[in-house]
């Protein structure tokens, strides 16, 4: 079965009423996946044997009516650790790596009896915006298989968009949940920094990384965030802020809501067809009783430069652990310890990962630290202050997610700067640690375009409320893609 006609609420009702068992649901999910995924490549590895056993156990003890996710098949990006299930971060470096513990988010999935079907393809170590940097396979956009799914959580977005699973979990360091959500016409939430534990997420940019859900509907997304949010003693940066029920307050009412539209997000660098979709979304919100006013985020244009310094610096430090000694890839025929390090890293990492390590090492090196790393940290402060100022007067910020819809496979991969510029509208949100969500807003030449909603820290609820009202007022989310959908 595919998941186009069901949401979590209806699936849960069917499971509780025993109209379908968890085992039958898992089997039907794998059957559909085997028919659909060979054309798309959303999954790197499947968990079939363990899943059928887990589903049988869930059926034996009975579906808990209080656990919405019980028996629900989910997919997980392959940089999130799953005990006993190979976790590669789409890198040759970790091709055979089997985690000995679960990420906290995965622990929470298991505690809620969610069923992890398999692991999603991604850009290697989450570095990239097209999933073309995977060491293992190409992932294709289900709306047009000649195009990229976006990235780095491309496999997760495609798995949901093509109806293979109702929920997938990705990670977002500079746009890696929101941009693929936009390219695939699904809902993707990057929660506030600290909202979700990073324990067991293979670290890329530790001051930026967050795990979040991708779903077909806003309500399902809110329910999925309910499952994974909250303080974790294993992640000192996770927050002790109260976690509300994110599905509460989804009533379609945005009357009186004050929405800001940054002029920098609608300038000439944005594809006119994308701009048109966003302009229509603005009209929709106004018709629903919200006010939308133009504001300025003057430092947002410096976000890309600041981000690629900060994220690369953090990455160069985080990726030092891959040394060919305790785990991961070790080069053959090495003659001494230095050789193990240098050759294992040079043969185990792909080009984009090497580029980031080089940029980070350079930015942190003697003589360049002040001009690059420290300066980027100062610009980050200015970007944070821009947002703070806007949020003094507004409830949320609206704009596009990406400057264009999905581009062709192969078109941008040889030009790093063009690829980096795709993140111009998502990066400032990570730098400021704010929640950001992509909601399907329309189409440009048949390709999905997402609307980005940006909120105050720990105010995901307002994004869900606004996203839900918009979704219910349009039929964009009811469209299905070419592969996996329609028939």
């Amino acid at each position, binding site marked *: 079965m595919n998941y186009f006609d069901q949401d979590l609420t209806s699936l849960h009702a069917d499971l509780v009423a025993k109209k379908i068992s968890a085992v039958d649901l898992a089997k039907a999910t794998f059957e559909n996946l085997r028919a659909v995924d060979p054309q798309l490549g959303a999954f790197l590895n499947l968990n079939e044997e363990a899943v059928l056993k887990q589903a049988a156990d869930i059926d034996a003890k009975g579906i808990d009516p209080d656990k919405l996710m019980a028996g629900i098949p989910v997919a997980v990006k392959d940089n999130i650790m799953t005990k006993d299930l190979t976790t590669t971060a789409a890198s040759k470096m970790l091709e*055979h790596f*089997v985690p*000995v513990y679960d990420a906290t988010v995965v622990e929470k999935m298991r505690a809620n009896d969610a069923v992890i079907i398999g692991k999603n393809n991604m850009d290697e170590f989450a570095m990239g915006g097209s999933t073309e940097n995977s060491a293992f396979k190409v992932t294709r956009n289900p709306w047009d298989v000649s195009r990229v799914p976006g990235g780095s959580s491309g496999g997760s977005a495609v798995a949901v968009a093509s109806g293979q699973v109702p929920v997938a979990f990705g990670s977002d360091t500079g746009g890696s949940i929101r941009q693929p959500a936009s390219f695939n016409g699904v809902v993707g939430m990057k929660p506030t*920094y*600290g909202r979700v534990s990073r324990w067991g997420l293979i670290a890329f940019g530790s*001051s930026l990384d967050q795990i979040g859900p991708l779903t077909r509907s806003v309500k399902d997304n809110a329910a999925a965030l309910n499952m994974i949010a909250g303080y974790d*003693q*294993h992640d*000192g*940066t*996770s*927050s*002790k*802020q109260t976690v509300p029920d994110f599905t509460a307050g989804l009533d379609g009412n945005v009357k009186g809501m004050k929405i800001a539209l940054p002029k920098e997000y609608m300038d000439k660098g944005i594809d006119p067809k994308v701009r048109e979709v966003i302009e229509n979304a603005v009209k929709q919100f106004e018709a629903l009783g919200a006010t939308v006013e133009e504001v300025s985020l003057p430092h947002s244009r*410096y976000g*890309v*430069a*600041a981000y*690629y*310094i900060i994220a690369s610096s953090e990455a*160069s430090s985080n990726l030092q652990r891959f040394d*060919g*000694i*305790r*785990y*991961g*890839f*070790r080069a053959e025929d*090495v*003659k*001494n*310890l*230095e050789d*193990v*390090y*240098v*050759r294992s*890293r*040079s043969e185990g*990492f792909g080009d984009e990962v090497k*580029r980031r*390590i*080089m*940029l980070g*090492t*350079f*930015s942190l*090196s003697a003589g360049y630290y002040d*001009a690059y790393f420290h300066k*980027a*940290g*100062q*610009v980050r*402060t*200015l970007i944070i202050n821009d947002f703070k100022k806007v949020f003094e007067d507004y409830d949320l910020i609206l704009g596009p997610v990406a400057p264009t819809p999905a581009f062709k496979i192969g078109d941008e991969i040889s030009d*790093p*700067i063009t690829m980096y510029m795709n993140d111009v509208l998502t990066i400032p949100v990570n*730098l*400021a*640690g704010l929640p950001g969500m992509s909601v399907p807003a329309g189409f440009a030449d048949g390709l999905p375009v997402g609307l980005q909603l940006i909120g105050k820290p720990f105010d995901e609820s307002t994004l869900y409320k606004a996203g839900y009202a918009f979704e219910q007022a349009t039929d964009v989310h009811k469209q299905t893609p070419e592969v996996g959908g329609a028939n």
Partner: protein
Amino acid sequence: MAEERINAEQVQHVAGLAKLEFTADELGTFTGQLEKIIGMFEELSAVDTTDVPATMRLDDDTNRLGQANMRPDKAVKSDEALRQALLKNAPETANGLIKVPAIIDESGDGE
């Protein structure tokens, strides 16, 4: 900032710090790409950051680094099954230990 942002010699030096090596071809490609990306970084020099503090991490009132937010530092008991699982991920083992090549260079080429 310098006229020439980065040259092949500097790229070699940074590669050494990062424990990476490049072929001559790769070195040429990487130098060209890094030159352009670092050029993009230099856009930041146009921003007035006088007296602006740098943000290096994000925290809120509940997770500011300090004693209050640290979990107690105590030993957690491990077991043989975990030890075996960990060793399975090691590229080479001997007698239940992780094996590494000689730390002293035995190639005889004096490097």
